[in-house]
């Protein structure tokens, strides 16, 4: 019997106090169109609540968005808490307003890619497909 491939499960999350979520919403709808199962947390999430939701929902990908400059603290914190929960394989990516100079250090801390302004949904979807661990 042919095994059907389970859809990729993505959690799109907004850590911190920033309330701008146009990108998060567009990506939610866009990745659904790409055949993925997407949950959007809504704004004003803590790193702890994001890790908890990721664990409960057993997602393959966590996509973080921040536009207020607090990414250097918040993104690595989410990664840290995911690893604490034993979620070592989950793919973490980020977006928002992230100065290019911050990207290398974020990558070192476990955020595999940053998709800033001008990124295409298709490129994000392809990156996820190529890098997700299932």
């Amino acid at each position, binding site marked *: 019997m042919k095994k059907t491939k389970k859809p990729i499960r993505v959690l799109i999350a907004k850590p*911190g*106090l*920033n*309330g*701008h*979520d*146009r990108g998060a*919403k*567009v990506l*939610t*709808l*866009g990745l659904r169109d790409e055949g993925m199962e997407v*949950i*959007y*947390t*809504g*704004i*004003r999430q*803590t790193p702890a609540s994001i890790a908890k939701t990721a664990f409960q929902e057993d997602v393959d990908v966590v996509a973080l968005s921040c536009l*207020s*400059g*607090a990414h250097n*603290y*918040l993104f690595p914190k989410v990664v840290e808490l995911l690893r604490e929960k034993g979620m070592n394989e989950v793919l973490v990516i980020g977006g928002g*307003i992230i*100065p*290019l*100079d911050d990207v290398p250090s974020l990558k070192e801390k476990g955020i595999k890619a940053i998709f*800033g*302004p*001008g990124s*295409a*949904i*298709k490129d994000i979807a392809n990156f996820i497909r190529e890098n997700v661990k299932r």
Partner: protein
Amino acid sequence: MYDEHQLAEIEQALSNWESTSLKEALEKMGEWKKEFTTSSGLTAKRLYTPLDLKAGEWNYLGQLGFPGGYPFTRGIEPVMYRSKLFRMYQYGGYGTAKATNEWFKYIIERGAEELGVAQDLPTQLGLDSDHPLARPEVGKVGVAIGSLADIEAIFKDIPIERIGVSTTSNATGPIFLAFMLALCEKRKISPQKLRLNIQNDILKEFIARGAYIFPPRPSMEFACDLREYCINNGLINVRPGEFCGYHMREAGANVIQELAFTLANAVAYLECLKSRGVDLNKCYQPVAGFTAGLDLFEEICKLRAFRRMFSRTMKERFNVSNPDAMAVSYRCNSQASLFTAQEPMNNIVRGAITALVQALAGVQVMSVACFDEAHALPSPEAVKIALRTQQIVAYETGVVNTVDPLAGSYYVEALTDELEEKAMTLFEKVQAMGGAIASIEQGFQIREIARSALKHQQQVESGERVMIGVNKYRGNEAVHLEVRRPDEKDVERQIERLNKLRKERDNDEVKIALNGLKEAAREGANLVLPALATVKAYATIGEMCDVLRDVWGEYEYRAEVL
């Protein structure tokens, strides 16, 4: 404008032109697109003629009138820029009160007419700097204001009776007024001298910006407390709230949605004030904030249309007759979501176009977004260029010489009419759902805007919507802009200051004042004076908002809306 006979002649001549010169040109050269549309998807015809004004019985006095008179299509003042140019404003801020104070002094020396107080997110959300949620965000997008002490530091040696202050306090709007009233008291300045613009538009926070604290209905009442207090106390130089379309547009709304949802929110505030017995004729100098985008004609027509929509609504829906209450003043800013991260210098050009839009549309306060918008908070150089952009438009282009110079253009008038008509249809739909708050509670605007945002993105990805440097003529140069970083030590210093304050103030007085605020909130009284009492006792913004959280609860974002 044209009698039946003239129009018939034009119609005939047009038909001839279409079957000869036009036909030839189309056969020989063709057009490079099948359909030409505005940025919001409205059809842009090849040519507009007087025939396009005939439909709907267009007439000059009914649709346009004169600037400074109903329906204000042409502008809210008779002489506009010939007497006073648009005010040149640049939103910006620094993380510490001291740095903000120095920045203010710097720009005052250089002729600034208004000081923009950008607040950090914890402040806007009523959180003290040492709140666990606040720590990573203290001082990042603006100054941290913990108490009256920070306000005093921000405005040290600054003559607030001579220079205007503007701030985007929304959920905490009345508290910011209380801060400034307290400062006036300390300096023995009459509050009537206070020139203040407080954004105070909580409804758009639920729809687009996300900086709400309490649920919609008590938030609305709180926002109206500020408006009502200013009206009842003759604070004629305080603008106690804006009707904002800007943020909804930046969240992805198209122009029709921007117009309709803004008007619906405005009506909600006005109905709330009316239900309190406020005479709406006293809501003088209403303010609205819109984006200035790149689709030149659509944007200009949008702003002309809203002046007419607003004044007609005031007249027909609310029976308002005071022209001061019907003429909506504009504070606009570039539609910065169109500013690219790629090839950021191109954004200087985009900024210039948005400045031209604002000047041609007759805004009262202009802002231009900075070229490094998509990278970080603006550098001083970027701010300077944005300011110079405004100055060049004001002094070198001549567009300020005549009022509403585009009036009478067949395209401009046809498009203004079309935008008004479509926006009013959507506005009526929101009203039929029970008004702005009811539709917010149903997630209507959020879903509509998310759909428009997705459509926009799909159009960019398909190439249908061109963004130079992004999906057309894309270069490969890496962008390295010097990014201004807040000093992390400032956060520690701010928290130290807060702790010191909490020890040194009269905590009994604080307790009494906070209880007073709580009681007043429970009774549904106007909260400006109770807030003022807490401010004067040096209560912190977190303490004040916690009291209100106890009474009203907190709003929880409903992600299932999507």
